[in-house]
C-alpha cells in the first residue's frame, strides 16, 4: 500500500488493471483539466497500440525521451519478434533504473517526481523511470556567504545537485541520509544527513519526530521547517543555522551536526546550532589561525557595538555626561546645539531611516540601487545634519552600528540584533546605564535559556568551564585540534543539564 501522507494511508489507492486503456482512463480522470499530462503510444509491427508512455510536460526531458527512449523502444519492437511486453521491458531496463508501480497513487507520485510511466497492454503493473528535464540554476557562488579564500560553490534549488556536492566532499561510509515528504500538496522532498558515528542519536531522534510532526499544505522554503522545529518560536534569535555552502555543511556534519536539505531551496539547515557558530563563517577554516581568531574577536566586538552602540551613546549623552572626556563632550554639545529632539528621538529617526534605506536597497533593481544609495547617504548624512534634524555624532554612531551589523556572517542573527537595538535604546533613554544593564541582562538571560533538542544555544558559555569555553571559541591550528584523526568524534556541543530536561521549572 502506498503511503503518500506520512503515517496515514490514502483512501483512494487503486490497483492497476491489465487493460491499459482502463488505467489510462482512470489517470485522465485524475488529471482532468491538466493539459500538461501527455501520452505517447508505442505500436508493434502490426501497428497495434501495445503500450503508452505517460509523462508531465516540462518535468521530463522530452528531447531525450524522443531521441533515445522512444526511438530505441520503437526500433526494438520492429526488430524483435518476441512478445511486445517483454521486448519493451528489456529495452527499458537497458536505459536506466526501472520502478515497478502497482497503484494509481504511486503513478501520480512518480509523474510528479519527473518520471515517465510506461503502461503495457496485458500487464497489471506500470513501469516508471526518472528522466528529469526541468531547468535548474547553475551552481554559483552564494550571494550572502562570500569568501576571499575557499570553495565558491553554493547550493541550488535542485536537491539532487546539492546532495551531489555534499557526497563529493564527504565520502564516508558513516554518512547517512533519511528522507521525508513534507507538504500535503507540494510533497516536497526533505533529506536529513548526518554521520552516524558522530551524531547525538537522542538529538537525531527528537529532530526526526519534529520533522514528522510538520503539517503543511505547501513547503516552499526551509525557513518553514526551521520555524516549525525550533524550540522557542517567539525568541528574536534564530536557533538554527542556515548555509548555502557545501563546505560549511560538510564541516558541520564532521562536528556531529545534522543537516536538513530541502528540495526547492538552496539553504541547508544545520542543527543543533549554537550562537557562536552563527558568528563564525566557514572562511575561518581557510585562513591562518592567527587571523581567524583575530577576526573572531573583532566580530564579537562588532556584535556588541551593533547591539548596544546607540544605547551607549544615548545613556552617556543623556544621563552620564561626566563619563565623556571634556573636549569630546564640548564637541558633542556644540554639535547638539540647536537640535530640537532629545538624543533618543534623534537615534530613533536615524535608525529607522537606516533600516528603511537598507530594505529599499534590497528590493530595488540593481541598476537603480547605486543611485538610491547615494541619494540615501546624501539625505541621511548631509541634509538631515544641515537642516538641524540630527547631529553629526549621531550620524557617525548610526553608521558605525550599521557597518558593525554587516560583519555578522549570519543574516538572521544580524536581523535579530537590529531588532533588539530598539528596546535597548528605549531602556537607555528611560534610565541610562541602569536600563541598559537590565536590558543586556535580559538579553543574555534569554540567550542562556534557549535550547534546541536539549542542546544549549549559548554553548559553551555558561555550561562548561571557562577554559574549555575558550578552547571551543578560539580556533587552534589544524595540527593541534583535539583528536586530529577523529575530529569531533563526539558531538561538539555539550548537553550538560539537559539529560532529563524537558521544560521550564514551573511546568
Amino acid at each position: 500500500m502506498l503511503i503518500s501522507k506520512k503515517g496515514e494511508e490514502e483512501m483512494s489507492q487503486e490497483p492497476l488493471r491489465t487493460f491499459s486503456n482502463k488505467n489510462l482512463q482512470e489517470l485522465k480522470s485524475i488529471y482532468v483539466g491538466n493539459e500538461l499530462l501527455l501520452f505517447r503510444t508505442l505500436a508493434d509491427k502490426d501497428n497495434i497500440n501495445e503500450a503508452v508512455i505517460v509523462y508531465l510536460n516540462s518535468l521530463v526531458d522530452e528531447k531525450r525521451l524522443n531521441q533515445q527512449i522512444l526511438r530505441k523502444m520503437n526500433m526494438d519492437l520492429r526488430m524483435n519478434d518476441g512478445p511486445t511486453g517483454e521486448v519493451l521491458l528489456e529495452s527499458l531496463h537497458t536505459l536506466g533504473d526501472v520502478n515497478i508501480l502497482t497503484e494509481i497513487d504511486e503513478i501520480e507520485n512518480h509523474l510528479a517526481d519527473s518520471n515517465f510511466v510506461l503502461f503495457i497492454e496485458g500487464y497489471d503493473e506500470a513501469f516508471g523511470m526518472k528522466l528529469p528535464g526541468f531547468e535548474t540554476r547553475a551552481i554559483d557562488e552564494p550571494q550572502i556567504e562570500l569568501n576571499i579564500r575557499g570553495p565558491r560553490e553554493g547550493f541550488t534549488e535542485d536537491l539532487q545537485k546539492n546532495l551531489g556536492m555534499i557526497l563529493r566532499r564527504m565520502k564516508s561510509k558513516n554518512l547517512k541520509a533519511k528522507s521525508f515528504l513534507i507538504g500535503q500538496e507540494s510533497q516536497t522532498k526533505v533529506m536529513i544527513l548526518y554521520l552516524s558515528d558522530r551524531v547525538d542519536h537522542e538529538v537525531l531522534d527528537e529532530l526526526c519526530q519534529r520533522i514528522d510532526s510538520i503539517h503543511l499544505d505547501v513547503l516552499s522554503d526551509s525557513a518553514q521547517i526551521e520555524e516549525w522545529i525550533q524550540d522557542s518560536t517567539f525568541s528574536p534569535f534564530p536557533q538554527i543555522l542556515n548555509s548555502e555552502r557545501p563546505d560549511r555543511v560538510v564541516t558541520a556534519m564532521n562536528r556531529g551536526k545534522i543537516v536538513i536539505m530541502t528540495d526547492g531551496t538552496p539553504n541547508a539547515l544545520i542543527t543543533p546550532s549554537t550562537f557562536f557558530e552563527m558568528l563564525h563563517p566557514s572562511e575561518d577554516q581557510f585562513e591562518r589561525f592567527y587571523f581567524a581568531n583575530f577576526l573572531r574577536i573583532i566580530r564579537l566586538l562588532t556584535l556588541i557595538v551593533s547591539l548596544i552602540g546607540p544605547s551607549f551613546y544615548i545613556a552617556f549623552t543623556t544621563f552620564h555626561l561626566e563619563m565623556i572626556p571634556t573636549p569630546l563632550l564640548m564637541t558633542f554639545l556644540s554639535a547638539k546645539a540647536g537640535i530640537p529632539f532629545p538624543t533618543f528621538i534623534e537615534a530613533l529617526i536615524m535608525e529607522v531611516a537606516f533600516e528603511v534605506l537598507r530594505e529599499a536597497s534590497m528590493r530595488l533593481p540593481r541598476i537603480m540601487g547605486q543611485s538610491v544609495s547615494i541619494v540615501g547617504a546624501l539625505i541621511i548624512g548631509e541634509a538631515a545634519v544641515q537642516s538641524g534634524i540630527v547631529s553629526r555624532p549621531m550620524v557617525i554612531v548610526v553608521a558605525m552600528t550599521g557597518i558593525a551589523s554587516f560583519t555578522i556572517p549570519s543574516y538572521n542573527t544580524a536581523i535579530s540584533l537590529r531588532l533588539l537595538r530598539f528596546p535597548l535604546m528605549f531602556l537607555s533613554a528611560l534610565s541610562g546605564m541602569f536600563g541598559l544593564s537590565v536590558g543586556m541582562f535580559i538579553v543574555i538571560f534569554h540567550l542562556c535559556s534557549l535550547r534546541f533538542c536539549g542542546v544549549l544555544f549559548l554553548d559553551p558559555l555558561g555550561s562548561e568551564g571557562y577554559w574549555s569555553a575558550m578552547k571551543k571559541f578560539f580556533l587552534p591550528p589544524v595540527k593541534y585540534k583535539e583528536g586530529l584523526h577523529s575530529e569531533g568524534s563526539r558531538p561538539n556541543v555539550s548537553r550538560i543539564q539537559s539529560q532529563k530536561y524537558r521544560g521550564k521549572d514551573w511546568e
Partner: protein
Amino acid sequence: MKVREKISHLQLGCLLFGYIAGFESLFLTETKLMKQDVWIANVFNILIGIALLGIITYVQRQFPGYKMTEICDKLLGKWLSKIMLFIYLLSNLESASGGFRAVSMFYTTVILPNTRSDYLILIYAVCSTYAVYIGLGTLARTNLIIIPFFLIGFLATCLFIIPEIQLNPFLPQLQSSKSDIAIGSMHLFTFTFSQLITFGFLMSRVENMKKIFTSCAIAILMSGLYLVMISYLTLSSLGFNYVETSTYPFFSTIQLVKLGEYLERIEILLIGLWTVLTMVNIIIMQYVFTLVAGHVLAISKMKPFVLAIGLLFFVHASKSYIRTADHFTYGTKIYPISSLLPCVVFPVVLGLITLIKKKGNIKAS
C-alpha cells in the same frame, strides 16, 4: 517524567559569590564602623559563614533525595515546619524588598535623581519575575557569564585606584572597641552569609552533592577576600573620615579611577555590573521564595503564582523603606536581629535535630 534542571556545584558556588559580592560591596557599613580593623569582622564572617554552610550541607547530605522544605517537614513535623518556613518567607521578603529599595535609592541618590524610584523597582521586578519564570539553570549560566566581567572590572578598578592611594589603611591596628567589632561583625554577617539558608533551599538542585561544601566554601572565602580588598582600597584612597561620612564609599572610590588623561569617571560601567549582580541576588531570593511558598501553601501548579509573587515583591518593595533614614536605621538596628531566627537559629535547629536523629538511629541499629 519531567525533572527540574540541575545545576553544577561550580554554578552554585558562583551564584553564592555573585550574590554576596554584588550587593554588599556598595555599602560597607562595617568598614565605616571598624575602619582598619575591618579584617576582624571579615574573618569572623567567613568562619561563621563556613560553619553555617557546614551545618546546612550536613543536613542536606543526610537526606540526599529530598528538598530542604521536605527535610524540614521530616525533622520538625508538618505544622512547625510550615511556621518556620513562613518566618523564613517573611525574612526573604524583607531582604528582597530591602535589596530593591537599596538599588533604587542608590540610583535616585547619585545617578538618576529625577527618576521615580518606583519605576526603577518596577523594571527590576519585571526582570526578576521573568528570570524566576525561566528557572534556576538559566540563572546559573547567566551568572557564570557575568562574573568574569565583574572580576575584570574589579581588577581594573584595583589597578587604577592604586595610584590614588594616599595613606596606609592597615595601621594602627586594634583601635576598635569590642562593641564596634561585635556590631560590625553582626552587620557584615547579616548582609552577607546569613542568607546561606536561601542557598540551602537550592542544594537539592545540584548534581554532585558531595562537592557543594567545597565549592561554596571557596565562594565564601573569595567573597570575604573581595570584601576585605575593597574595604582597604576604599579606606586607603578616600581616608577614614570620608569613608565614615560617605553613604556609598566604594562608589566614591571608583569615581577616582582614571585611565590616562582622557577617560575618567567610568564608575557607571562598574555600577552597571553591580546592578546586574544585585539583580542576581534578588532573583535568587524571589526564586527561593516561590519554591518555599509553593511548599508552605501546598500549591500543586506553581506557574500562575510566579507572576503573582513577582507582583507581591514589587508592591511590597515599593511600600517598604520609603524614607532613607528609616531604611538605614532598619538595616543597622532591626534587620540584624530579625534575620537571626530564620537565618541562624533555623539551620542550627535543623542541624541539631538531624544530629540527634542520626545518633538515635545509630543507637537503635
